[in-house]
């Protein structure tokens, strides 16, 4: 005779971006159901964009997320530029990578120090941790501020930047504005290296998954804005082929779509761990050395994403310094273009993972169709699958302990629920 079901519900997941819940149902000591419940209402940005002038798209899509607006701007302008046949100059391309470094530094530093480290040190929050680890928390705040500084200088402001344009930027910064950042970034690089070594010494649960990693990959650089979409099993496609290989599907318990590989019907993982494992060779020298020292080439432990995130902070500082010290030429701010009917798709690497955009534009420069697939939608199915495999190890624990273990795992992916809504409370049902 089967037992009464046991339901464990986390009503509101803590220390994730946005609001969502987790429902777990346990019967006869086994996990019967795991539902990552994203209940923020659908935001319908794709419909909102239809009929808008294409120049409005980067500013509108930046509103999708307060944490990763640059990613939305970058995916949108790259997709629109492909639709229009625009190629930006190498100097503008370099400034875009610099802006993206700012977003990675800001987002990763926040997640590592205030959202994720408390899990490993036994605190409920970054705030609670601050009294015992003031130097570490202040270091995190300082790194985060460096990212904001780049967004300010290149994006016009740190929150929802407004300076990214189709074809380039509305205004390029003066060389003196960029040069002034060098001393802070030199300090930041060393601090980021220390952060990465610090977090790599934490105790990580023993938990490995046979991940299908998915990330942009580029032969000449650690992919941020350009490259092929690549997978662990060797697929390498242009972003224009995304819909041929990846499918979003609705699930009844979530306002976020969930993505799977069409070929396998299976979930996949995007984000820092996927990027480092697929693109380790392209990391800059200090980051590469840390990856080789601290993250095994076969590592597929989601809890160690915090190490991958640290490695990426180091990479972002190295690349930013390389650009800042090189006195980037700040001449022409935008490439000219003419309106034409066209279709363009692009993917860039948001801090949380691959962000795909596709637009169709008409001859008057208006958006005829838009499709946006955020990283948390892509990871959502994988998170549920990972929970199904991780939680049996703690199934005899109390409901509170199970809920706590589940939340810890979910935070490893740094989900951005607000982005994904079209997403966390944890509820466990025991039967």
């Amino acid at each position, binding site marked *: 005779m089967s037992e009464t079901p046991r339901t464990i519900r986390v009503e509101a997941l803590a220390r994730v971006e946005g609001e969502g819940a987790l429902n777990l149902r346990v019967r006869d000591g086994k996990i019967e159901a795991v539902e990552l419940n994203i209940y923020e209402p659908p935001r319908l940005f794709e419909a909102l964009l239809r009929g808008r002038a294409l120049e409005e798209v980067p500013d509108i899509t930046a509103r999708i997320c*307060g*944490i990763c607006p640059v990613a939305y701007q970058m995916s949108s302008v790259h997709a629109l530029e492909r639709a229009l046949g625009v190629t930006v100059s190498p100097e503008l391309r370099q400034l875009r990578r610099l802006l993206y470094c700012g977003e990675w530094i800001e987002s990763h530093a926040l997640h590592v120090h205030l959202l994720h480290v408390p899990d490993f040190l036994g605190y409920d929050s*970054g*705030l*609670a941790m*601050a*009294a015992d680890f*003031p130097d570490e*928390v*202040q270091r995190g*705040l300082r790194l985060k*501020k460096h990212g904001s500084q780049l967004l300010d200088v290149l994006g016009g*402001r*740190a*929150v929802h930047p407004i300076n990214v344009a189709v074809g380039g930027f509305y205004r390029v910064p003066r060389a003196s504005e960029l040069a002034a950042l060098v001393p802070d970034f030199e300090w930041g690089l060393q601090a980021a290296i220390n952060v990465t070594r610090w977090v790599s010494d934490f105790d990580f649960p023993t938990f490995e998954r046979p991940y299908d990693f998915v990330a942009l990959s580029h032969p000449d650089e650690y992919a941020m804005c350009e490259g092929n979409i690549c997978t662990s099993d060797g697929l390498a496609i242009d972003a224009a082929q995304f819909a041929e290989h990846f499918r979003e599907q609705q699930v009844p318990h979530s306002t976020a779509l969930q993505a799977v590989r069409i070929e396998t019907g299976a979930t996949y993982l995007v984000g820092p761990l996927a990027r480092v494992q697929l693109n380790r060779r392209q990391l800059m020298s200090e980051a590469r050395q840390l990856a080789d020292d601290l993250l095994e080439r076969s590592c597929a432990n989601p809890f160690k994403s915090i190490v991958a995130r640290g490695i990426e902070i180091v990479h972002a500082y190295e690349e930013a310094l390389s650009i800042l010290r090189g006195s980037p030429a700040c001449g022409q701010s935008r490439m000219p273009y003419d309106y034409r009917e066209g279709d363009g798709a692009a993917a860039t690497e948001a801090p949380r993972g691959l962000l795909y955009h596709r637009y169709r534009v008409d001859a008057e420069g208006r958006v005829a169709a838009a499709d946006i697939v955020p990283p948390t939608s892509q990871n959502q199915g994988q998170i549920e699958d990972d929970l199904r495999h991780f939680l049996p190890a703690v199934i005899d624990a109390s409901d509170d302990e199970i809920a706590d273990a589940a939340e810890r795992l979910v935070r490893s992916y740094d989900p951005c629920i607000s982005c994904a809504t079209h997403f966390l409370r944890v509820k466990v049902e025991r039967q």
Partner: protein
Amino acid sequence: MRPSQTLVVGIGSSHGDDRVGWEIADAVLERVDGRAEVRRARKPADLLDWLEGIASLEVCDAVAGEIGPGCVRSWVWPAAEIAGVPFAGSHDLSLVATLALAEQLGRLPAHVRIWGVGVHRVQAWSPMSPAVAAAVDRAVEQICAALDVARAPQP
């Protein structure tokens, strides 16, 4: 050396009634005649960089929903009720979280007063609504009076 400075911060943005913190900071700057340092902030976390040497902090921000548009209220930190006040803005650390973090880090001034102005219309690039614009002078009078009291010789 003991901190002695007074800092007045207005938190705001260019968007409609959310300008009110900036407008108050600008008006206080004209009145304080060097008696206090006055700054505009785009987000509460900016405060964390400005607290060294500060003994007294007056911080002003917009409040969405909890109090009527144009109403001015103040709270002396730590006030239990402040945790539930919906200061405007959904990005980064909130004002309350920022002050709590500064306190945990031992960086919070001995005296902190929070000024909240109820707001109504926070739309990109729009002007302040009349009710909120009219509240600026009242808030400035109250903040300057508080600064005067703070600086008055103690018996």
